[in-house]
């Protein structure tokens, strides 16, 4: 149950999606009618200088609406009034897409959220001596740029197979307003 009295500024809701694949992009292209080949055709995407297909910007948007639909239990406790996003970073197959919405303001029955959609892109795993254990698509195709490194977006962490190098980047910032019934 979601009630106004339970909500406070700073509270966050979140979803994670790990299933961005070429098949999903094809499924989305068919469902949405957005058949721009840079999303579904490797040759065209490479010709456009993208090094491979990229996800539709609006595909990511759907995970934001889903987050609020799930939170409001599909209209049981309130409704979505407004969602605005900026598409800043490309989302690739294999990325982990994390959508977080944090309460910024509460006015009457309306709740304003700050939205951040972040992609986590795995590059490779190396052992402690620096030997390559596993390489991911981003590593093979060079999705990570010098700019990403300069901006401090490329990070490492220990995993069971060794040291994982990955990029953490904000893909879609935005705002949302929902209205609760009570």
């Amino acid at each position: 149950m979601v009630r106004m009295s339970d909500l406070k500024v700073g509270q966050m809701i979140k979803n994670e999606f790990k299933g961005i694949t070429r098949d999903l992009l094809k499924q989305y292209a068919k469902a949405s009618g957005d058949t721009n080949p840079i999303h579904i055709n490797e040759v065209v995407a490479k010709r456009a200088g993208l090094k491979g297909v990229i996800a539709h910007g609006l595909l990511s948007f759907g995970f934001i609406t889903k987050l609020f639909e799930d939170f409001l239990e599909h209209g049981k406790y309130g409704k979505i009034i407004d969602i605005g996003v900026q598409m800043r970073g490309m989302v690739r197959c294999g990325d982990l897409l994390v959508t977080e919405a944090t309460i910024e303001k509460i006015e009457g029955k309306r709740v304003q959220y700050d939205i951040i959609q972040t992609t986590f892109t795995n590059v490779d795993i190396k052992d402690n001596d620096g030997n390559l254990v596993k390489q991911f698509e981003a590593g093979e195709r060079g999705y990570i740029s010098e700019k990403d490194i300069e901006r401090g977006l490329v990070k490492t962490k220990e995993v069971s197979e060794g040291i994982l190098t990955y990029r953490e980047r904000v893909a879609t910032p935005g705002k949302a307003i929902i209205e609760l019934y009570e």
Partner: protein
Amino acid sequence: MDVEEMKKNADFLINTMKGMDIHGSATVNVRYKNMVNFAKVYGITDPKYVGSEEQGIIACHAFANYFTIKAIYKLLLGVKLNQNGKERGIMLDPGKLLHAGNRYNWEGCVDVKPGDKLIVTGKCIDVRLVEKNMMLFTDFLVNVKNQDNEPVCNITISAGFRKGGY
């Protein structure tokens, strides 16, 4: 195309398009199958969105993407302008188009149901050139109403055109 020509084209688009109503409208016939297929992309299982046709369903909010794409492809890309006696579209090279952002507003709007016939109309509300990188940005306000003239969604689409695209 050199920078001077790009600036001339940008000036033309700014002067011509800012505040311009997009001629005509696009019609979107909403089918049960489209709505369900769309919801399934997101793994939505709630019967409100993916239940049987007999039970009756409504479109999930992400379905707004469906009419946004129709608006872009059918309405905005179809705009014809006259620049110095020559016909041209908003953009010269669709490959230079970047979808920069979207805002959906459902205030006072009704749900989308199978069988709805949506009418999409648009207006260009802003065009601006960022000279630092010669990107031309445009904002379009798109209104979507159903067959009963009830509002379904109001969308602001922000698009950017890279060098050589306008």
